């Protein structure tokens, strides 16, 4: 007897939050002949993390999921609520602290646009109106995108209902920000996270900037338990409703015939058939490496991959330290800090000489000695995350958990051989820790109990992502998120193959990406069903109604499905007319 059914409606590669969200979303719309194949032995992908000497660690810094408030949930928040998984989420007021000693900046910003704007105004007087104006604009664009992502009305409708989105869509973040005439200091405080990501706002589309900023400064809640536990709950729920989830199953190949997906083959050699495949692995890996036979990969799919640039990968030092955060000089959940503002992370791989320099130098060099070009990480902006401030349950009593992260282009590790690897890692860790102590003033090094260092190589090893990347693609004008969504059909190069979340700015593969992929599959099933049409008998599952992106966050509580449907029908009709 085989391990798998003869055929699945949908095979999902990856039991990450995105993969499991896709599975649950499909199930909730009546498609439950679904198989989830996870490479690791625990659900959650990046969120799964690992256990070491009694501590649960994430592979790299735990990102904040934007779920919104109970009253005004985000798409993710609404989804988790619908799935009965938003228990134990607590409101959080701190957004982040930004410390830029060279610019005399040390500010902590809190949730709520007015509050954050007041806090910036307190350090850079006279900026309140500008900052609040920018934030409100971001919110309008964000809310428009939430509505539009499933549904594009004609130009007139767009202009009337989504004017701010339409007017700003063609510009970079820097261009729009400049119209608010804010002093540089205020801009630096506002944009700390973009510097951390190493993105230049000259090339980030304002739309993308707005999506992030609107959520960053909105009221939000944080999960009180490790995200791994949320993933486990999602897995259990999926299994309880008939979805098959299998661990330790790495997918080697996606089988394609005549331009259409046939199924997958695992590293164990099982060939499994399915009508649809949802990949949480990037197209960067799927098209050049996984499609079998490779002759089934259209040239345009490779062009698509080559036209994008991978985001940088994190270098993280993960530590548990004896004592409370306060005792260790750590006062914030999320801190961005740096000495100089430089948002251009170097893209050059380390030269042999530079690797040599790192290896032969027994003591960590002073900052000035670090080769500016080809430096493995962008030390100029480091992020410190202390989960103690997010969730008491996540860290054992009496310990501090701290993640220090800088980003490095994946190419930075290109010339580092295996013999040098551990030394390079320790050296990077040493430098990151020293930089943090420099701003916190408390040398906690003698009290470190566990310490792990993550690089792109670690991520590749643990998650199998392409080149160890987890932040998707670098946002760019030529990869405008709205253009991507509008051109989705033209860019579906293989029938039946969907990808979960590939917006660069999305911090990788997350719940919204999974929902988007599930929606793509449901839409396609719908279309096929309509095309098969009248009376023809079909084995295809019949998705339930309301599959066209019905959980949109308009910034208001989301009405019941039935209440949304008529409006969407109407919009769909208008849409049809205008096209």
């Amino acid at each position, binding site marked *: 007897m085989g391990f*798998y059914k003869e055929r699945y409606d949908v095979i999902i590669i990856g039991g990450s939050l995105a993969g499991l969200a896709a599975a649950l979303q499909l199930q909730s719309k009546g498609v439950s002949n679904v198989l989830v194949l996870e490479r690791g*032995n625990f659900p959650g992908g990046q969120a799964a993390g690992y*256990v070491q000497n009694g501590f649960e660690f994430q592979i790299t810094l735990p990102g904040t999921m934007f779920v919104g408030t109970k009253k005004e949930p985000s798409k993710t928040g609404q989804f988790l609520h619908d799935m009965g998984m938003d228990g134990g989420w607590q409101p959080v007021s701190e957004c982040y602290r930004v410390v830029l000693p060279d610019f005399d900046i040390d500010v902590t910003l809190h949730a709520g646009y007015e509050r954050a704007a007041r806090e910036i105004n307190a350090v850079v007087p006279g900026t309140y109106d500008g900052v609040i104006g920018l934030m409100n604009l971001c919110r309008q664009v964000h809310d428009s995108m939430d509505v539009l992502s499933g549904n594009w009305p004609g130009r007139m409708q767009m202009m009337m209902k989504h004017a701010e989105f339409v*007017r700003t869509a*063609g510009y970079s973040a820097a261009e729009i920000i400049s119209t608010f005439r804010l002093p540089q200091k205020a801009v630096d405080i506002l944009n700390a996270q973009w510097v951390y990501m190493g993105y230049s706002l000259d090339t980030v589309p304002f739309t993308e900037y707005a999506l992030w900023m609107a959520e960053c400064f909105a009221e939000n809640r944080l999960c009180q338990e490790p995200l791994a536990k949320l993933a486990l709950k999602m897995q259990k729920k999926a299994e309880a409703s008939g979805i098959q989830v299998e661990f330790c199953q790495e997918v080697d190949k996606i089988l394609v015939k005549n331009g259409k997906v046939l199924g997958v083959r695992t590293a164990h050699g099982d060939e499994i058939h399915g009508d649809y495949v949802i990949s949480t692995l990037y197209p960067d890996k799927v098209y050049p490496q996984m499609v079998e036979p490779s002759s089934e990969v259209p040239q345009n799919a490779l062009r698509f991959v080559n036209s994008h640039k991978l985001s940088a990968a994190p270098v993280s030092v993960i530590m548990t330290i004896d004592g409370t955060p306060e005792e260790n000089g750590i006062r914030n959940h999320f801190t961005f800090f740096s000495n100089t503002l430089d948002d251009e992370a170097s893209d050059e791989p380390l030269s042999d000489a530079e690797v040599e320099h790192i290896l032969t130098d027994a003591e960590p060099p002073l900052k000035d000695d670090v080769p500016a070009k080809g430096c493995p990480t962008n030390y100029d902006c480091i992020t410190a995350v202390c989960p103690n401030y997010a969730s008491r349950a996540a860290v054992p009593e009496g310990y501090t958990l701290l993640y220090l992260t800088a980003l490095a282009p994946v190419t930075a*590790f290109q010339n580092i051989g295996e013999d040098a690897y551990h030394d390079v890692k320790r050296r990077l860790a040493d430098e990151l820790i020293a930089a943090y102590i420099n701003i916190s003033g408390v040398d906690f090094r003698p009290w470190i109990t566990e310490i792990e260092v993550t690089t792109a190589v670690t991520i590749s090893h643990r998650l199998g992502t392409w080149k160890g990347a987890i932040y998707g693609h670098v946002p760019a004008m030529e*990869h405008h998120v709205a253009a991507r969504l509008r051109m989705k059909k033209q860019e579906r190069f293989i029938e039946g193959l969907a990808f979960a979340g590939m917006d660069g700015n999305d911090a990788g593969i997350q719940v919204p990406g999974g929902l988007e992929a599930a929606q793509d599959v449901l839409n396609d099933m719908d279309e096929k069903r309509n095309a098969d049409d009248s009376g023809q008998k079909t084995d295809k599952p019949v998705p339930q109604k309301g599959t066209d992106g019905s959980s949109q966050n308009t910034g208001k509580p989301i009405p019941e499905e039935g209440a949304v449907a008529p409006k969407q029908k109407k919009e769909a009709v208008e849409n049809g007319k205008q096209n």
Partner: protein
Amino acid sequence: MASKINVNGFFRDTSGLPRMEELRKSHLANAPADPDTDDFIRRLAERLHPKNMRFQVVSIIESSDYTRVYRLVPMDGHIPVFQCGQYMNLRLKIGNSVLTRPYTISSAPFEARGDNPFVEIAVHHKKGDFVPDYLFKKFKVGDTLDGSMPFGNFYWEPLRDSRNIVAIAGGSGITPFYSMAKEVASGRMKGCKLTILYGSAKSDDIMLKDELEQLSSTCWDIKIVHVLSDEPGWPGKRGLIGQEMIKRYSSKGCTYMFCGSFAMYGHVLNALSELEIPARRFRHAAISNPSDVSILPGYPKEKSGKTFQITVVRGARQDSIHASAHETVAVALERAAIPIDTHCRNGECGFCRSQLVSGEIFVSPVGDGRREADKETGGFHPCSSWPLSDLKIKIPIM
């Protein structure tokens, strides 16, 4: 304020989206179409953690009556970098079963580099141990073995640990420290001083005795103290390694590293807590479970000697196997020739993580590496869990 944004005039402002679409189209059309298949990060990851290795036994040294040192060289010549204290996982095909067993690498990391790289494992064998017995009887020079390495986070970490290391070893628990002693003697762990307190029952139980003497006599930074518990005529230290002795060989802020049996672990832990040594200064290797589960605290003794039925679910397939109360679920699976990928064999690493669907198990309190969420929902590690009733379990498809 600025609610009606106006950047370059109405026309240009409102034509943004079509402009972005055109930009996207042309960008895609102009991109090269050659596939980039070179994932150099993955390549490095696979150099560091090769999935499957095949080793050839190049020499077997009888270190003592009960100890053999197997020198292994990978068929493809490549040994991944490892750190003193890490282990390799051997995959032994015995009959229809595949058994996976961890062995600490007893050779030094530097010996795995250079022109003639090798790794060694030191196998201790007294009657009755199944796998050592098999190794002793079966493996000759020239034979091949499958396995993978390196695993485990029991190693000296310069970012955290002191350069003054007090190693406490029992029986075959000497192997990580033998590796470390060689590395120190070679001058590679600069500034480190290694004191090994090595407890054995009798003098003929001491593993690698001459080798260790040799190292400590040639390197000032290595000191070895033998402590025998069961040999009244022994001229050196006798008894158990306790608080007194540990204190005598400690220095301020030193790091303690332990590798030994379950019984000894409890003893050493007590001694260290009496000395008020904080947990961060105490590292220990995976503690093997005792061969008799019923001596573990909390084990319901009335279950001893019983046999149970385990329903094993792998995907759409179900099998039914027998299990006896005194063997772990992993051993029951191995006996039934159902593959299960175990690594540490004591519950810590979680490689064999499976799902308990129904039934009752006993989980060893030593090295219970389950996540909190798993404890609540039935996730368990078969290598360190014993059946207390008929079970239904779901394990990974191998």
